[in-house]
């Protein structure tokens, strides 16, 4: 028999399909009713179609439904929209009509719509106008309240990739110091990838000294930096670069050629147990909430359950999130059925115009439960999930711990499963969006906040262990510990895992060393030690600076 949540999920997935496919130019009226995207009258090209109720001129504080202005483009697209299989709805419009759509869409859906300063849509180019359609308030740490306001070309956003594949070496670089004396190290590698097999044989902690003969540590000219960045993040399979690295503990560097390939990432690694005088501890490294993680997490928890562990350490330090339902499954597998029965994993909260209905999908705002059976991401659907039934869990975190990973923390706290946080402050993103296309640009504007069973979701400055130096985000029990690239992940001597084991034994932390709220981190310094992750090509930040 299909579990109730699976049925609800099928319905929600159908409704969400539009949303995750970058809905084309839709919108809702201020009364919450869906608006036909083609329901408006095309604006006169180049004129001020206005954002007022009259449709002729901008009147501050008056908004027509976004649908009135949808798909009225400076450069209308032609052909078939792959998101709908229908011809693109675009008609000739203007910068102002595109801005009008953004203005109304933001007024309808932006989480903090009442903090947007209403500006004349005829006065700015569209990218600059969009940049103004957000709050400019700051969080308690002084960081911008909205750090997640951006656009992507719709043609780029519509691309899909097989779960976990990327063109690269299969190494996660971490930049410990982005300016000279620069330090780039290996955070982890993917099994079977060019990075983890001969001739590279890279392991965590290896320091990159040269790429294609260019000094990584001290180069500062722009040409060298461009070449170094290109070498760190190859664009295509088959691309080769010459690396000189100093392996952890090695006396002398070595040089080898590494060739990029299509790499499949392994989101769950190093599943193991540690026997201590006070009990058996389970450990797993969980790097990404991609579809293939579901099956691997189920296998990992089943293994640890069979091993009879007394405590669990989940290493989330590099996990930037992904599918929220996978986060719910893992939270359930940690906590078990008793504390989670009938409780909410996460409730999505839109702005105050939409208290009961998801304004994008039109479905009721039902909370995401703790999911107790597999959903079919990569495991057969409908299988009861194994559980550890633990009253507490140790989570290793860093600034790369974000979004769905933070939902694991928040949801467990919401049902009184103790989260002991070891590491640095997390990224602070309790928010989400339904990206929307208009005229070939997909807009990301925060539309909802996730809250736990207790209604808590205010962690814009992240979660911080209690003894974090400087400004802390939402404080949890635990220890502030910087990342330790001198030991392998899962090694009991690795600083964060060692601190978890020590805290478990005696409730004491080592001297705090982790980073504070990422909102306060302007530059990376060697002392912070947490580093910044260098992502695969399409995720790449040009990280090295003069």
């Amino acid at each position, binding site marked *: 028999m299909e579990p109730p949540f699976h049925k609800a999920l099928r319905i929600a997935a159908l409704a969400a399909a539009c949303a995750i496919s970058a809905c084309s130019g839709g919108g809702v009226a201020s009364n919450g009713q869906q608006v036909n995207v083609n329901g408006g009258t095309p604006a006169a090209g180049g004129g001020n179609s206005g954002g007022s109720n009259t449709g002729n001129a901008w009147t501050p504080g008056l908004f027509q439904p976004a649908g009135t202005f949808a798909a009225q483009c400076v450069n209308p697209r032609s052909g078939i929209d792959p998101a709908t299989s229908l011809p693109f709805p675009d008609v000739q419009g203007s910068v102002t009509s595109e801005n009008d759509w953004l203005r109304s869409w933001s007024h309808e859906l932006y989480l903090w719509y009442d903090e947007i300063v209403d500006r004349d849509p005829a006065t700015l180019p569209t990218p600059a106008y969009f940049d103004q359609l957000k709050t400019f308030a700051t969080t308690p740490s002084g960081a911008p309240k909205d*750090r997640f306001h951006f656009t992507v070309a719709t043609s780029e956003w*519509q691309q*899909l990739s097989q779960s976990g594949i990327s063109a690269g070496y299969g190494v996660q670089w971490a930049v410990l110091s982005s300016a000279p004396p620069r330090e780039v190290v290996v955070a982890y590698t993917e099994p079977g990838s060019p990075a983890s097999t001969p001739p590279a044989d890279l392991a965590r902690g290896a320091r990159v000294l040269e790429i294609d003969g260019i000094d990584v540590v001290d180069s500062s000219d722009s040409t060298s930096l461009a070449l170094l960045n290109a070498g760190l993040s190859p664009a295509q399979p088959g691309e080769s670069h010459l690396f000189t690295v100093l392996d952890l503990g090695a006396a002398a560097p070595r040089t080898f050629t590494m060739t990029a390939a299509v790499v499949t990432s392994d989101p769950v690694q190093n599943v193991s147990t540690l026997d201590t005088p006070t009990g058996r501890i389970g450990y797993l490294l969980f790097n990404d909430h991609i579809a293939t993680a579901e099956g691997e997490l189920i296998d990992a928890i089943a293994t640890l359950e069979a091993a009879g562990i007394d405590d669990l350490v989940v290493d989330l330090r590099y996990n930037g*999130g992904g599918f929220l*339902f996978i986060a719910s499954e893992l939270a359930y597998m940690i906590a078990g059925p008793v504390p989670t029965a009938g409780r909410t994993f996460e409730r*999505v909260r839109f702005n105050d115009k939409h208290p009961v209905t998801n304004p994008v999908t039109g479905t009721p705002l039902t909370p995401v439960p703790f999911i107790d059976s597999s959903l079919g991401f990569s495991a057969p659907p409908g299988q009861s999930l194994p559980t550890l039934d633990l009253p507490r869990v140790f989570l290793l975190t860093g600034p790369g711990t974000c979004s769905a990973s933070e939902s694991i923390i928040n949801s467990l706290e919401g049902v009184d499963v103790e989260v002991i946080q070891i590491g640095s402050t997390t990224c602070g993103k309790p928010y989400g969006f339904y*990206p929307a296309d208009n005229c070939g640009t997909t807009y990301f504007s925060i539309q909802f906040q996730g809250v736990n069973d207790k209604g808590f979701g205010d962690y814009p400055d992240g979660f911080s262990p209690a003894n974090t130096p400087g400004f802390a985000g939402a404080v949890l029990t635990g220890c502030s510990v910087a990342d330790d690239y001198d030991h392998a992940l899962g090694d009991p001597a690795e600083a964060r895992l060692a601190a978890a084991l020590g805290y478990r034994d005696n409730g004491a932390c080592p001297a705090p060393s982790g980073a504070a709220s990422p909102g306060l981190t302007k530059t990376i310094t060697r002392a912070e030690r947490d580093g910044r992750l260098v992502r695969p*090509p399409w*995720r790449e930040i040009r990280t090295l600076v003069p």
Partner: protein
Amino acid sequence: MRRRFALLAPLIVAAAACRPGAVREDVPALLVAPTPAARDEVAAAIASALRGTPISIAPDALTKASLLTLERREPAGPERRTATGRVLGMPERFRLVTDGSRCYLVHESGTARVELLRAECVPE
């Protein structure tokens, strides 16, 4: 698939023929040594099911597991990195199946079912 099933096929057909009304059931399958043409056929079938959405799949896709999931790429940029951090819903899912004589690609999160003419497969 056809190669490996060549010897068994008559047996399967005969067995099915002995049971009036018997219907061959799909079973999950794996591609066997896919040729470039077979990989192209798989990619084309997926793209067609997704209405022409550009896709990227690994050369060894469907050779190790019958389920293939497709997700959005995380766009470039420091703030864009969070675009895929809190995703509601499910990925696109395709399953390779065989009925004992032919290979099909089934869009589990949709409705498409495409026979693959250039691919060889065996039960998973």
